């Protein structure tokens, strides 16, 4: 393309939406936007247009620090064989939701 101002200049943003009060924000996807204010508006249009949310966070995707697939074994495997770390030894009352 001859026009330099194409989508390649628009950074990627990760979008987190909180469905209702009391819940935490959940990652719902990503989008392109020229800046944070427009990213929020685009997120509103793309991810909450059917009343999915009461709050939106947008985070520059470049700022997300991710674990490396190469470190998968040392990061995650040690947790797998220690049953005493899992909350499986007590009953969850019916009244407790979203746990």
């Amino acid at each position, binding site marked *: 393309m001859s026009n330099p101002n194409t*989508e390649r200049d628009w950074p990627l943003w990760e979008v987190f939406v909180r469905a209702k009060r009391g819940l935490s924000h959940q990652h719902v996807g990503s989008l392109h936007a020229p800046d944070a204010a427009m990213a929020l508006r685009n997120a509103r249009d793309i991810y909450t*247009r059917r009343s999915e949310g009461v709050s939106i966070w947008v985070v520059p995707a470049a700022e997300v620090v991710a674990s490396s697939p190469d470190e998968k074994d040392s990061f995650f495997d040690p947790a797998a064989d220690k049953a005493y770390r899992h909350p499986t030894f007590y009953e969850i009352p019916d009244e407790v939701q979203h746990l």
Partner: protein
Amino acid sequence: MTPLATYALRLGDDALILAHRLGEWIANAPQLEEDVALGNIGLDLLGQGRLLLTYAGEVEGAGRSEDDLAFLRGERDFVNLQVVERPNEDFGVTIARQLAFSTYQLAMYARLEHSTDATIAGVAAKAVKEVDYHRDHATQWVLRLGDGTDESRRRMQHGLERIWPYVEEMFVTDDLESALAADGVAVEVAGLRPEWDTYVDAVLAEATLERPTPSWTAEGGRSGVHTETFGYLIAEMQHLHRSHPGASW
């Protein structure tokens, strides 16, 4: 048509025709995200248009439905402002049109929320939140394009020049509107001008854009006089319904 039916039809036609124009951006906007944003705004307007056309048909009492009014009227029977039918051209022109019309529509609906006509008041109360967002969307883009690169500023200024001849028509109050306003049903658009000026001037100043001084002004939309592109819009909007009479989803 009764004055009330005509009034509802005017507001409804504005919303319907602008919704159609915004729909033309889908798959053509600069970004996928902008396709969705403009499509959303168009759908908000379509919702307003449906309610108002339905109401116009009820008040008229001749059995015409929203579809009859949207798809079976001729070009000269539409009473929308000419500004909403103006072609999209480029993104700058579209955003200039959005700024001009959404600022006008927001000022009007904010007053129509208190209309003595319950249906008009109800539509306005629902729409005012939608249009507040439409105005914000346009404002954000005018600021970014105006105060952006040399090219974006040039094109945003060009957009303003293209749309400004159609601004004056928005604020013309005729006898029908005055009579309904005296009953508390309608709002006299002439009185909305100061609020519109204040908002738009502030946005243009912050965007480092110049307010155009058009050498001519459009007129006649409310009496069915439209610009040369309107017939094509109507043809595209109506052809499916006219080709398959009575078809439904």
